[in-house]
């Protein structure tokens, strides 16, 4: 057997004087193998990647164990040796491609900076090697990319450049730390299939792929390690871990995905209660026991060290659980989703809403117009959940902001409580309007003022909603979003992301909210927490009889919770209808593409290869289909005449030249074997 590229044995890492963050990680990656590392945030996934490069920052240090890359011991290597390893034998791709590249340097020069090329190993003129690697990451015109500045490329293109840069090093170990988090699902799929392709063609390169997205891991990984609280608690082939997970943590993670086929739409999403414990709170024994649905008293709470034991299906599948072989399936949430009060009345009625932004470059150049909303029309019924879906830049958030009064429309109307709010900023709205339409934002870290205590934030919201804001009312509100009572005295910095989002929800429901605008409220949260926050939102919605405008890019979640769906592309509604209609057939080619990008956590699912498109510019001619440049089903008429609005069924509309009968086929999403 060949020597593994990466060997980690009993790795322990601590930051500062703190307790060990990694508590004995064992991991090996063979040449040509892609290893997926999954787990909630705070489990130590990224620390593993940084420790492998011995790049832990000022405060971090390896307190035990051994790491070897290609047989070189990382722990005892000198700084000079490490520099030779980094960027040559191992290369890393970080989460945010926009900050990974120098904005003041053209792509070509930046790629030529790779240490291997600078030391002359790429030949006298490295341009050939660079062009070749850019072609490998699927740029159709690599010569043009060389001359571009980073800001001229999209997020997906930037990440492909960063991957190209890593590949230029010809590393034997490629580390990818959440490389697609923050990118659109379509782009995510593109990067994942690219990584898969690179893995297959690389001839022996080992890949460590870190992600919290189980669907993506299913696409790229050969083997998977599930990480919890600084340890790998389950390891096996992708098929073993995803199809027959042995550890309750892995089972609970998979069960909390909104696309899980065992939960029919309308039922409750499953959650994992509690939080990942902090390293200093950990005692010997099973770290997951306090959150585990299968915890057995007298067995799982014993303070004894755990060891990896073979799972029942064997074949190298191991897990660290005292009840291994006897672990039940995660329970179905008992309480059903309550029926909602719907009387056919409308909360908000949006007609022909338009908004565009003009951007003018600092130094000359033409002013360009970005259309964020183009004659958007939809209505939200009382008690309904309507979802706005689309990639970033589709105008979802602009519409949410106009309805909230943080922006004003150029034209069109939005009727709520008998008045048109399309051109009324929040500052000019009546108190009644303001309490009727509330917003929950995406980023939990910025949604609450860090200087204020939770009690104060909620008291203020209650008073704005026309209530007294007494301590009892604040306590009731905190209880309603299932936060501990002492949360009122804490500042946001002492809360987890999910808890902060709960406070934001409490703030939104402090008054009599008719419509809650939820702008990607759970996108920044782990799936386990996401489910709990979504269910909370739904419960309070039912109690208040409110409607929700749910802005999201997560189609599985949208399918699970919404009544109506509006699909936006560059500010234009390309399809709208009931959830069943939009997710069923016929569907707009864009909806088709979005749905094709959804990848279940199933290694046997074969994702359709989405057409890669470097040119995402809008069509110049007004009125033409905005999706035309990316469309895989374009007709000659698309380039000359605006697309007609087709109505295949009542309440279902598709903006496309194709007749509904021609939109019945899907991109092939065959299941192997």
């Amino acid at each position: 057997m060949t020597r593994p590229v990466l060997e980690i044995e009993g790795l322990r890492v601590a930051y500062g004087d703190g307790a060990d963050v990694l508590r004995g990680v064992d991991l090996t990656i063979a040449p040509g193998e892609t290893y997926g590392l999954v787990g909630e945030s705070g489990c130590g996934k990224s620390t593993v990647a940084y420790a492998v490069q011995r790049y832990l920052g000022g405060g971090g240090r390896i307190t035990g164990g051994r790491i070897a890359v290609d047989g070189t011991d990382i722990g005892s290597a000198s700084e000079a040796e490490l520099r030779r390893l980094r960027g040559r034998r191992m290369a890393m791709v970080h989460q945010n491609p926009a900050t990974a590249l120098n904005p003041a340097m053209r792509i070509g020069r930046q790629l030529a900076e790779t240490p291997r090329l600078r030391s002359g190993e790429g030949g006298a003129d490295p341009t050939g090697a660079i062009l070749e690697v850019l072609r490998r990451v699927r740029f159709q015109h690599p010569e043009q990319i060389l001359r571009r500045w980073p800001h001229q490329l999209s997020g997906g293109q930037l990440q492909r450049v960063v991957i190209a840069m890593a590949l230029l090093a010809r590393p034997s170990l490629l580390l990818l730390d959440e490389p697609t988090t923050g990118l659109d699902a379509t782009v995510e799929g593109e990067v994942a299939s690219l990584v898969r392709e690179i893995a297959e063609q690389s001839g022996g390169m080992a890949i460590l792929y870190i992600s919290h997205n189980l669907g993506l891991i299913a696409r790229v990984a050969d083997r998977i390690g599930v990480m919890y609280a600084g340890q790998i608690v389950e390891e096996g082939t992708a098929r073993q871990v995803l199809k027959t997970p042995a550890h309750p943590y892995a089972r609970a993670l998979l069960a909390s995905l909104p696309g899980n086929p065992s939960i029919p739409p309308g039922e409750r999403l499953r959650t994992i209660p509690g939080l990942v414990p902090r390293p200093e709170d950990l005692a010997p024994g099973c770290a997951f026991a306090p959150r585990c649905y299968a915890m057995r008293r007298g067995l799982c709470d014993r303070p004894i060290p755990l060891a990896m034991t073979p799972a029942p299906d064997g074949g190298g599948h191991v897990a660290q659980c005292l009840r291994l072989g006897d672990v039940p399936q995660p329970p179905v949430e008992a309480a059903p989703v309550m029926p909602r009060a719907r009387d056919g009345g409308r909360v908000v009625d949006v007609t022909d809403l338009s908004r565009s932004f003009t951007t003018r470059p600092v130094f000359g150049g033409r002013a360009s117009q970005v259309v964020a909303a183009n004659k958007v029309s939809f209505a939200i019924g009382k008690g309904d959940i309507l979802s706005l879906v689309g990639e970033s830049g589709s105008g979802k958030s602009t519409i949410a902001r106009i309805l909230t009064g943080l922006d004003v429309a150029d034209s069109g109307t939005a009727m709520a409580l008998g008045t048109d709010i399309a051109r009324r900023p929040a500052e000019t709205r009546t108190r009644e309007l303001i309490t009727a339409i509330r917003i929950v934002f995406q980023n939990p870290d910025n949604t609450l003022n860090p200087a204020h205590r939770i009690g104060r934030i909620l008291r203020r919201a209650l008073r704005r909603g026309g209530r007294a804001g007494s301590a009892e009312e604040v306590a009731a509100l905190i209880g309603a979003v299932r936060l501990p009572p002492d949360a009122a005295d804490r500042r946001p910095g002492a809360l987890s992301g999910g808890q902060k989002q709960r406070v934001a929800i409490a703030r939104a429901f402090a008054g009599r909210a008719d419509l809650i605008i939820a702008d990607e409220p759970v996108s920044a949260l782990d799936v386990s927490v996401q489910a709990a926050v979504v269910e909370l939102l739904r419960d309070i919605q039912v109690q208040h009889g409110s409607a929700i405008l749910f802005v999201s890019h997560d189609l599985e979640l949208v399918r699970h919770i919404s009544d109506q769906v509006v699909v936006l592309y560059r500010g234009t509604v390309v399809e709208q209808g009931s959830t069943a209609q939009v997710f069923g057939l016929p569907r707009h080619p864009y909806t088709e593409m979005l749905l094709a990008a959804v990848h279940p956590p199933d290694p046997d699912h074969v994702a359709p290869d989405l057409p890669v498109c470097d040119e995402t510019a809008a069509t110049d001619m007004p009125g033409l289909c905005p999706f035309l440049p990316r469309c895989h089903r374009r007709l000659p008429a698309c380039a000359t005449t605006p697309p007609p609005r087709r109505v295949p069924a009542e309440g279902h509309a598709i903006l496309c030249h194709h007749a509904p009968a021609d939109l019945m086929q899907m991109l092939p999403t065959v299941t192997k074997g």
Partner: protein
Amino acid sequence: MTAGANRTAKPARTGLLARLRGSRLLRSRSATVGLAILIFWLVVAIGAPWIAPYDPTAIDFAASADPSPSAAHWLGTDVLGRDLLSRIIFGARTTFLVIPLSVFSAFLVGAVAGMAGAWYGGWTDTILARAGDVMLAFPALVLYIILITTFGPSLWNIVIAVTLTYAPGVARLMRGQVLAVKGLEYVLAARAAGESPIYIMAAEILPNVGTPLIVDLCLRTGYAVILVGTLGFLGLGLPPPTPDWGGMVVEGVNLMTIYPHIALLPAAAVTSVVVACNLLADGFRETAR
């Protein structure tokens, strides 16, 4: 439940006030030393009538012949025979009245202008920024001389001079800070809740832009001591015979070669306050990290 308990125990140090009273500041050695020096001078200033051995304006003709330190006058006298120790002690009073007043005025004007410019943007921002640029571009010394010749020396003219000099810089710092916070979601949430601009600026934005401003405040207080000294040197200090450290240096400078203590001792007092302010600024910077 230990996890929850620990999380409660950890205080969230984000507010301006929390930072000020937090013991973390005193864990920084430079801040402690700086604070100690300032408190020393503050006590001296408040207790001046009781501490000072002489009236700072009383003239001792016998001593004026030889102003060197003696048993009667520990630090000597100035050329007019006024007790130097008493004058330095009473000079602290002047300093601790003039400096906080003028720095506070500069920060009030600068912070309001910076906040308003950043919040309202557009024309408000342009006009405020240009006004600041004009003030920064105008030679400071010329400005002071115009002030002296027009209005003569007085406490309020010092305050105006310091405000005109420092407010534009404070405004720029404030503007940048507010711009960074303005688009954050908690500010948007307050706007969407129909909060008034004044409430948002005062309660939502101000507590989160404080730290760099406090550091800047300490540094500028130090520089203001030098600036007020300079103004005293130019004759824009407080009218004589009020003891004023800057003015005392001027009086002593002619006899520098013979009786250096007359100029050097008040200069040392100025230096100690400047150093103390800088140490305190360092302390705040460390704490903010």
